[in-house]
């Protein structure tokens, strides 16, 4: 009999992130698909009661919590101790958790401690013949596998955005607090804070419906034989301001700075999509001045509708990857787009 455990951490506001509710949806669906299975919930945080109450109407029959000031910080040593204690208390055989940066850091170590196995970047959970299976991608989103495992506990880190969020209602949950022995836990690491760009300079917006991808063409010589980097910078930032799109970039454009070439100062490796960048999930994507495989296959894997602006009508990477390819000068098109959106927001 499988014991399915939704393992989540609470956010700084004491509640659950959307990604946790998505994992709860996957856990509930698997619980329904495997007759006789149990569904438990385990939460980690400074205080977990409000988070547990917020999902009290879900099919889980038991709630566990690891609470205390130590668990308010996202830190390997304390998180590993808490997650280990919770999985042991629940005697979990299948642990489903959101693939947040916090859990990505720690849960494979917990699987190791418990003699289990782990699969991350899970995009689907199902069952074949009553045995659970997961879908995940290999070789940077180039091929998709369906796999199963006999070892338990089996940790499944579910990629945010890959599942619907559980809309189960609130109520009153009875949380069983699990003691975590911190005596032997390293306290050599302290979380000092969060570093982020000013709100006006933040260009990465995971919740935006639109991803705007910039390629190296923005910094190359244009039809007049000159580069127009300041103009490109203004056009891109204006576009982001009026659309609230998230900004992605090809590797080549991000790397230009390291090669001493003209750069767009608001771009960093955090904006990079593709082979050594992110594979974000957005409903729509608009690429501009991109001519590589990375943004159009790897980086765009989970983009719904895709359009591209390029001067090359035969761009092999856009053709077959984008739904629409506009053969045009991105400077002129984006300038007009900005004007239209500014006039009719």
């Amino acid at each position: 009999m499988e014991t399915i455990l939704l393992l989540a951490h609470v956010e700084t506001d004491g509640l659950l992130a959307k990604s946790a509710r998505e994992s709860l949806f996957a856990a509930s669906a698997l619980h329904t698909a495997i007759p006789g299975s149990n569904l438990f919930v385990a939460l980690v945080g400074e205080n977990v009661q409000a988070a547990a109450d917020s999902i009290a109407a879900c099919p889980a029959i038991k709630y566990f919590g690891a609470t205390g000031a130590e668990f308010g910080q996202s830190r390997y040593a304390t998180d590993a101790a808490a997650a280990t204690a919770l999985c042991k208390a629940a005697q979990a055989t299948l642990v489903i958790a959101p693939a947040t940066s916090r859990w990505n850091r720690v849960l494979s170590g917990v699987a190791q401690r418990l003699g289990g196995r782990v699969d991350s970047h899970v995009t689907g959970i199902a069952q074949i013949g009553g045995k659970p299976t997961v879908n995940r991608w290999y070789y940077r989103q180039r091929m998709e596998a369906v796999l199963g495992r006999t070892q338990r506990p089996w940790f499944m880190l579910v990629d945010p955005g890959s599942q619907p969020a559980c809309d189960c209602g609130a109520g009153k949950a009875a949380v069983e607090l699990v003691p975590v022995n911190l005596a032997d836990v390293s306290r050599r690491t302290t979380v000092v804070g969060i570093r982020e760009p000013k709100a006006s300079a933040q260009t990465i917006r995971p919740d935006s419906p639109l991803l705007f991808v910039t390629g190296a063409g923005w910094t190359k010589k244009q039809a007049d034989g000159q580069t127009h980097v300041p103009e490109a910078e203004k056009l891109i930032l204006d576009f982001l301001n009026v659309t609230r799109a998230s900004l992605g970039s090809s590797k080549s454009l991000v790397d230009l700075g390291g090669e001493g070439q003209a750069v767009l100062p608001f771009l960093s490796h955090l904006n990079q999509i593709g082979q050594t960048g992110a594979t974000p999930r957005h409903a729509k994507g608009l690429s501009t001045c991109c001519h590589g495989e990375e943004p159009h296959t790897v980086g765009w894997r989970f983009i719904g509708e895709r359009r591209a602006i390029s001067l090359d009508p035969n761009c092999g990477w856009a053709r077959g990857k984008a739904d629409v390819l506009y053969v045009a000068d991105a400077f002129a098109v984006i300038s007009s787009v900005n004007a239209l959106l500014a006039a009719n927001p």
Partner: protein
Amino acid sequence: MNAYQIIVCGSIVPDPLQTLEPVAGAAGPALKNEMMLPAILDPWAGHALFEAGNLAKNAPGSKVWLVSLSPKAKLQQVMMTVAQKVPFELVALDGPASGFTEASEVAAALAGAIQTIPGLDKSRLLVFGGWESASRGAGVTMQMVGEHLGIADQFQGVDQLTVNPDGSLEILERIEGGKHQVSKCDGPPALLGWATGNLPEPKNNPQVGMANMRVVMPSLQKAKPVKLAGEGLTFAGVTLPKQLRTTRIVKDKSPAEIAQEIVQWIKK
């Protein structure tokens, strides 16, 4: 600055410009013509190696090891380039570098190899690697290596490591929404899974390459064979996505007309 023993874990992956196709092999899925595909050092592991080299350069007396589980013939080819980047000593394990191998078995093999390095001083030990690979792309192996080595101060998605005057480490890790978490660790031992970091790829230095290759070749010759059984792991299928979309090419419209169409699409 104190001297460090920096161990970088990194394997090889197919050149990202290659077309990859899965095939069913006797021991599970594999890539078609896998041994024929040109290979590179895994990109994020490469960043970890460059960061290690830079740290070692700034902390006199430090030493860098590259521990790699790869088919040794392919690893030798990759070393011809990588060995020219930064000084290191190779510890080679001869085994598959496939993305379909089991991470826990890879971690056990890497940790075992690290533990055999003579003169290892845990109080000076920093274990580096890529936070994910370009093959399995799971981001789970390094943590298990750390568990095998008893390292409880671990960081993933690292973009910056600063050694403070008191020897403590300030580490920036990527978190959600384009932000970094800033942590302070008292010092080694620590494990860092690197994202891209801040350093450009070092230029090839033939002198570094010659010095490295004097150790690389003997290491490759005595590389211990590693079998990865993939126990308990079964693949129900590995498929390529349906990649091709029917692309509508728009080339006879003015920028203003295209802009109008894009605005309508964005607002839809």
